[in-house]
C-alpha cells in the first residue's frame, strides 16, 4: 500500500500516523507539505491529527482551504480512499467531503482518554480488519469532537449504513456515559456516500503497540494494507 500523509504546519500526529502506516504496509508513507499540490500516485491519503493552522478559527476551517487539500479532493473524486483522523475528520467536514460538523465537546474541555468503539460496518476498505460489531479500545484526544448533523443527514447516515464507529461501553452498549464528547447518536466516525472517505475522531494510530497498552487500532491499518495491496 502506497500512502500519503498531508502535513500541515500544526499537524502533530503526523508522525504517529507515519509509524502506523509503515508498520502495517512495510512502506514509507509520503509526507506531503500543505503548500504542495503535487502528490505521487498513492493508494491511500491520510489527513492526520493536530491543529492544522492553529485552529484559532473553527477547527479545520482553514485547513480545508489549503493547496494540498485541493489535490486530496481531486484524488478522492477519482476514488482514492481518504482517511481523516481527529483534526483530519474536522478538515474533511469543513471541506465538504463528509457531512455534518464537529462542535466543541459537550463538557467544554479537551478530553484525552481511552474509549471503546463499536465497528458498525466491517464491509469497507477501512474496516476489513475488524469483525462486524467488534468492540475496540482506542484513545481520543480532542477539544472539538462533538459530531453534529441535521436530522435528515443523521437519518441518511443511518439508513445508508454510513456510520463507521460509535462510542460504546466495554460491553458494546451505547450509553450516555460512553459518549465522551456529546456526539449525536454516539457517532465517532462516518463514511461518505461511496465509503471511500472515512473520518473519525479517535486515534487508532496510538493503539498499535503493546506499549500503548493496546493494539486494537492495528486492525484499521492492517485491513487497509491488505485491501489496498
Amino acid at each position, binding site marked *: 500500500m502506497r500512502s500519503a500523509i498531508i502535513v500541515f*504546519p*500544526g*499537524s*502533530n*500526529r503526523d*508522525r*504517529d500516523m507515519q*509509524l502506523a502506516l509503515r508498520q502495517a504496509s512495510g512502506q514509507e508513507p509520503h509526507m506531503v507539505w500543505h503548500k504542495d499540490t503535487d502528490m505521487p500516485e498513492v493508494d491511500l491519503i491520510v489527513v492526520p*491529527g*493536530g*491543529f492544522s*493552522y*492553529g*485552529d*484559532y478559527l473553527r477547527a479545520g476551517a482553514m485547513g480545508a482551504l489549503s493547496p494540498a487539500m485541493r489535490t486530496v479532493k481531486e484524488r478522492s473524486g477519482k476514488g482514492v480512499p481518504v482517511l481523516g483522523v481527529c483534526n483530519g475528520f474536522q478538515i474533511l467536514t469543513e471541506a465538504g467531503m463528509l457531512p455534518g460538523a464537529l462542535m466543541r465537546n459537550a463538557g467544554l*474541555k*479537551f*478530553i*484525552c*482518554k481511552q474509549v471503546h468503539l463499536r465497528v458498525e460496518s466491517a464491509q469497507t476498505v477501512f474496516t476489513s480488519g475488524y469483525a462486524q460489531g467488534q468492540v475496540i479500545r482506542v*484513545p481520543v*484526544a480532542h*477539544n472539538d469532537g462533538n459530531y453534529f448533523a441535521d436530522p435528515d443527514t443523521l437519518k441518511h447516515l443511518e439508513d445508508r449504513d454510513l456510520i463507521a464507529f460509535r462510542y460504546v461501553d466495554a460491553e458494546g452498549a451505547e450509553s450516555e456515559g460512553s459518549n465522551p464528547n456529546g456526539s449525536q447518536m454516539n457517532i465517532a466516525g462516518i463514511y461518505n456516500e461511496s465509503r471511500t472517505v472515512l473520518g473519525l475522531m479517535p*486515534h487508532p*494510530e*496510538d493503539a*498499535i*503497540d503493546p*506499549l*500503548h497498552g493496546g493494539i486494537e487500532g492495528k486492525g484499521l491499518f492492517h485491513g487497509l494494507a491488505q485491501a489496498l495491496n
Partner: protein
Amino acid sequence: MTIPSTSITDAVVAEHGLKPDEYQVLLKIMGREPNLTELGIFSVMWSEHCSYKSSKRWLKTLPTEAPHVIQGPGENAGVIDIGEGLAAIFKIESHNHPSFIEPYQGAATGVGGILRDVFTMGARPIANLNALRFGSPDHPKTRHLISGVVGGIGGYGNCIGVPTVAGEVNFHPAYDGNILVNAMTVGLAKTDKIFYSAAAGPGNAVVYVGAKTGRDGIHGATMASKEFDEDSEEKRPTVQVGDPFTEKLLLEACLELMAKDCIVAIQDMGAAGLTSSSVEMAGKGGLGIELDLDKVPVRETGMTAYEIMLSESQERMLMIIKPGTEAEARAVFDKWDLDFAVIGVLTETGNIVLKKDGDVQAEIPLDPLVDAAPEYDRPHTPTPPSPMIETAEIPAPGSLGEALATLLSCPDMASRRWIWEQYDSLVMGDTVIGPGGDAALVRIQDTKRALAVTVDCTPRYVVADPAVGGAQAVAETWRNICATGAKPLAVTNNLNFGNPERPAIMGQIVGAVQGMGEACRALDYPVISGNVSLYNETEGKPILPTPVIGGVGLLEDVADACTIALKSDGNALVVIGQRSDTVDGWLGASIYLREIAGREAGAPPPLDLVRERKAGDLIRSLIGNGAVAACHDISDGGLLVTVAEMALASGKLGADVAVPSAETAHGWCFGEDQGRYVVETADPDSVIARSEAAGVPAARIGQVQAGDQLTGNGVALISLSELKTKHEAWLPAYMAAGA
C-alpha cells in the same frame, strides 16, 4: 552619540526594582547616569529572576557533575548522556506570578517558555510535566485558578503536540495568594548535535526569528522578583500571551535548521526577552554585540528601544549564524512562514550597543553588567526543629477503611483524572506509562530504551524541616523512577520560596538546598538545571517552601517496565525497606495527621540516604529480573494507601493486608516512613532473602486477592468500588460546584 535624556530619579530607579546600593554600582560601571533604556536593561539583568542574586551562593553548593552529565546548570537546559548517541535535555521553570494574575495565559506561556529552553538546545521535546500548588479549596479564587491553569497547560501542550505525561498538585491555604505553576520539559537530541548559547565569531550576524515583538510582558522578570500586594491584579498587562501554533512552527523550523550547518549559537527569548538573550549570548562568548532595533520585527508601530528590549513577547529566538549561511537559514524560516531578520552583528568591543532611528540609544559594557550582578549572602535563621510526635499521641480512627477513604478523597490525594484528561498525554505515540503511575515512562523511538520522568515535593515536610524536606523531594523522585525499573540519572530543581530578605525564609532556602545537595550526592544524582522563584508572598504571608524536583531516569529495555497495578490473584505483597516486626509508623507531618487528626505539626519522617540508595538499587534489580509483578513506592498516606492505589490501578483485584494487632496500627497503616516500596511477587521468600542480602529489610504484609475487597487480616476494610467512587469524585464535584 546621542542619548535621549530622561531624568532618572530615585523613584524611577526604585520602580525598576533596583536598590540604592545596586544603583551606585550601576553608576560606577557606566561612569555616567544611564538613560531609561540602559536602566531597564540593568533592572531586568539584575532582577532576582535573571541574576539569582539571593540564591546563587547556595546553588553553587549543589553537585552538578557526573560522568553522564554533558551540560550542567548555566545553559538554557541541562544535558545528560543516555547512551546510543542520544542525550536527554531537560529543565523545570516556574511561571507562578503570571499564573496568579492571568491563570490561562500565565500557565500556557510557562509551558511555551520551558519548551523553548529545551528545543533551543537542539532537542525535540518528548514530554511535559508540571507541579502545581493552589490555595485552599475553600478560597474563592481557587476554582478559577485551577480551571485557568489546567486549561492553559493543556491548551499549549496539546496544540504543539508534546504529551503532558505527569505532574503533581497540592492544596494549602499558604498558596491562597501565590499559586505555583512549575513546568518541566524533557527533550531528546543526538549527543553530537547539541546547541549552546555562547556567541562566537566577531562579524557574525545576529538573527531574530519567530514571532514579532509587541508591548506584552514588559517587566515580567521584575514583577516575578517582587512580593504581591492588593494591586497585583493591575499587573495583568505584564503577563504575556501565548501562541502555541507559532511555537510549533518555531520548533519545527529550528530543528530543521539545526540539521544543517548554519548555527553558531542560539538562545530563546524568555524572561527579559531580547535583553537577556543578547546580553547572555555575547557575554558568554566574551564579545560585544550591536543591534539595530529598527530591524526587529514588531507588532505595533512607535515602539521605543526600551519597549523592544524589555518586551517578553513569546515564541522568539535569537541566533548567531555562520558567515554565508543567511540565505539557507532564511529559506527554512520562509518555509514555516516565520519572521527572519538580521538585526545586528557580533563585535569585539565588549559592549552592547543599541541603535534606533540612526542614534545610539544605549551602550553598556557587558562584562560588568553580567559579572557585577549583585550576589547576596543574605542573613538566614535556621528553621527551629519541630517536635517528634508519637503515634500514641494521635487518635486511632474509628475504622481503618473509612480513614483510608477519607485520605484517598482528600484534596491532596483525590484522583487528578479531571486534570490529566484535559492534557494530551498520548500524542507522539511513545507514552508507555502516563499520568497516574509513579514516574511516567516515555519510549525512545528506534531503540529499546525509555525515559522515566517525575516531579515531586512535599512542602509540609519542608516547612517542618527544610533540610529533610529538600532531601525528601530528591529521594521521592528517585523512588518514583526506580519503581518503574529505570535508573535515576539527574534532576532539575525549581526553588519556590517567599521573600529571601527575611532571615526565616532565607533559612528555609539554605536548609532545603543543603538537604537537596546531600541527597543528590548520596544518590549520585546531580542537579543539571533549575530555576528559582522567590518573593512568593502576598501581604507578608509566604507560601510553604516548595523546592520542586524533576527527576529523569533511563530504562534500558522498555519491555522491563513495571507499573503499580496489581496483576495476579494469590501473589504476595512485600514491603521493601521495612522490618517484619514493625507495628508502628511515622505520623508526624503526615497526611493522616492533617486530614484525620486535624493537626499540621511534628517533625517529618527522617531519611536514611544510604539505605535509600540500597533500596532503590535493589528494586531496579528485582524489576530487571522479573521478580516483581508490580511496584509502587510508599509516599503520602503510607502503606495502606499505597496498597489501595495498586488495587485501584488494577481495576479488578483486591488485597488482604496483615495489619498488626497493636495500638499503633494506625501508624503502621498510614505512617510515612521513607525509603519504602510495596512490591507484588509470586515468590516472596526469594524477594525477602534478596532484600536482606542487599542490606534492606523487607516484610511480607499481605496478598493479592480476587474480587472487590480490601481486607485487613481477612476482615473487610472497604470495597474497591466504594473507594474508587470516593477517590474519583472529589475533584470533578469540587470544580462543578463552582460552575
